[in-house]
């Protein structure tokens, strides 16, 4: 059973990584939000499986919290935001998709290399997936850099937080509850602030193109 559970966790990890990759190549913002929701769902499933196999009930609470936050609340906020902002497309990224994919591959190799010695030391059943979690974090970081519109940058930020949460689950069966609550609160408040910002940016520049925000240069 435990062997099967380990494979299930590995599969969810692979799905999370696949979704992180899909987010890089995706152009439509609505699809980005759906991919993010799916990533959150995979995360919840992985946490629940780890909690089931290792008999740690606090992971169920953590999974429930993640579900509420990342599968229900934040996608809802994002949907409302893009409806009011009326954005659907992000037509161009700063570098084209095949080059982005290549850079993504290099980042994945780098992350796997970095995490390989550490994941062997992890006591968790999902220890091998630390490299995947780090790769997701780096891929989301890449996504934030190459996008020129505000909403994909925000989604990249959220996806990075997903990767970090998965890292916590895979390395250490999750952080202490109080810390997780604090992190969840921070993320929620962060999204709200970003939402407010996007409205302000939209009002000020009539567009959510980040390249308008490049006027403050070294003078």
């Amino acid at each position: 059973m435990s062997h099967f559970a380990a494979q299930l966790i590995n599969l969810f990890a692979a799905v999370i990584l696949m979704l992180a990759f899909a987010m890089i190549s995706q152009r439509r913002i609505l699809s980005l939000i759906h991919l993010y929701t799916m990533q959150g769902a995979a995360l919840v499933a992985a946490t629940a499986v780890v909690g089931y196999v290792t008999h740690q009930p606090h992971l169920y609470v953590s999974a429930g919290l993640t579900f509420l936050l990342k599968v229900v609340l934040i996608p809802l906020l994002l949907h409302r935001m893009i409806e009011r902002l009326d954005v659907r497309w992000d037509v161009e990224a700063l570098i084209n998709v095949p080059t982005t994919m290549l850079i993504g591959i290099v980042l994945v190799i780098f992350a796997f290399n970095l995490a390989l010695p550490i994941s062997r030391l992890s006591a968790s059943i999902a220890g091998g997936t630390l490299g995947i979690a780090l790769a997701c974090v780096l891929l989301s970081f890449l996504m934030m850099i190459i996008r020129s519109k505000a909403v994909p940058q925000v989604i990249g930020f959220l996806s990075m937080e997903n990767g970090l949460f998965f890292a916590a689950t895979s390395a250490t069966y999750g952080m202490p509850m109080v810390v997780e609550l604090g992190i969840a609160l921070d993320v929620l408040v962060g999204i709200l602030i970003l939402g407010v910002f996007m409205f302000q940016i939209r009002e000020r520049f009539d567009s959510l193109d980040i390249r308008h925000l490049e006027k403050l240069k070294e003078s």
Partner: protein
Amino acid sequence: MIPLLFVLGVPLLGSLVLAFTGHRGFARDINVGFSLATFLAACALTVVVISKGPLLALNEEFFIDPLNVFLVALTAFVGLTTSIFSRPYMRVEQDHGKMTPARLRLYHSMYQLFSFTMLAALTTNNMGILWVAMEAATLTTVLLVSVYRTAASLEAAWKYFILCGVGIALALFGTVLLYMAAEKILGAEGGALLWTHLASVKTRLDPNIITLSFAFLFIGYGTKVGLVPLHNWLPDAHAEGPTPVSAVLSGLLLNVAMYALLRCKVLTDGALNNALASQLLMGFGLVSVVVAAFFLSRQKDVKRMFAYSSIEHMGLIAFAFGLGGPIANFAGLLHMTVHSLTKSAIFFTVGHATQKAGTQVMSEIRGLIKVSPTVGWGMILGSLAILGMPPFGVFASEFLILTTAMREQPWATPFLLLALGVAFASVFSRVLPMVFGETSVRPLPHAPALLPVFVHLGLGLMLGLYVPPYLVGWYWQAARMLGG
């Protein structure tokens, strides 16, 4: 225990109260009142620590020791003086129409909340809560920086959020790895993230994990300290936010981030027994000093210029802690204190100066000493203080750092001296025309609050000549603990 509860509870309560009443006329005084109460609580806490020594409170979740006690007092003090400065400053801003009632409410309540998050970050024993508090501090300052809602301030706040958000996220990864290493030895309850527990077992933490963990923590918290090359948010955030916010950013938040780095450094040095942490701090500190000095010489906006000066000084502090050893650590801690006092004093005068002149561009500000002698003198003295002129405190700490560097890492000294020289020349050559020179601007209707400026400069001067014995005691104890 009780003072600690007050230190944390008062700003939190203040933030709630000001969220509703922040736009009224008396809101500014309420702000000062809450800051004063926080400061008194911090003094009481300091007295407790002086008499009883390091203190663990509330189920070991909070820890006050020589490293953070003076930072707590400093934070509360600068918070108080900045709120005093903010009174007339915000009044003028309101008159000029830049601050609507809603924005005033946001500003005041976020100011108190920011104090709360910084004090929480300083006093917590839990590395996870430290992260949460740093992130919360970032969020509150993002709101504060963007409060004017101009295009430039939105850009500054967005860049700040994204850069620091990414940095903080990497610091979270570092914290997770730290927890992973701690869990092996301390077990999986919440106690594994408590710094005191970690410090007692630091030699047994796994070196591989701690190396990776420190790398991420360094990148994460280093972004918040403003180390090059992750410093891009700093000049924009300082220039576009209201001046009180620039003062607390430079004076307090950078210190808290450095404090977080130091806590991690102690654990890393114990676990690794090599010089990785020191070398990282020294290297990036040195690069920050040099790069900041050169960027500084090209600035045209007065607040951006002093922001780069902050980067330079934080680089110098990082370099000092990287050098290690009792004298360099002592100098670093002293520098943190005097830099905080002096830089906020400068920002106070700059705030009044820019309000008078109506612009932040240095070539358009002239003749401050004619318009308001106190502002002019404050500016000159403050600039001299921050540039390391004796007998101000900055000179003492810079002198100690440079002499230690000459003894232990002589190759770095020419770079440091060159950078400090370039900074001196640039700043001074720009400040002189601002203070002297012809102008036709009329004085401001409201009297500037310059008491904070001179109090800060006075303290800086005093610390340059004489450091009180208990402060010396704390510095030495902290310096020993930092090791290296």
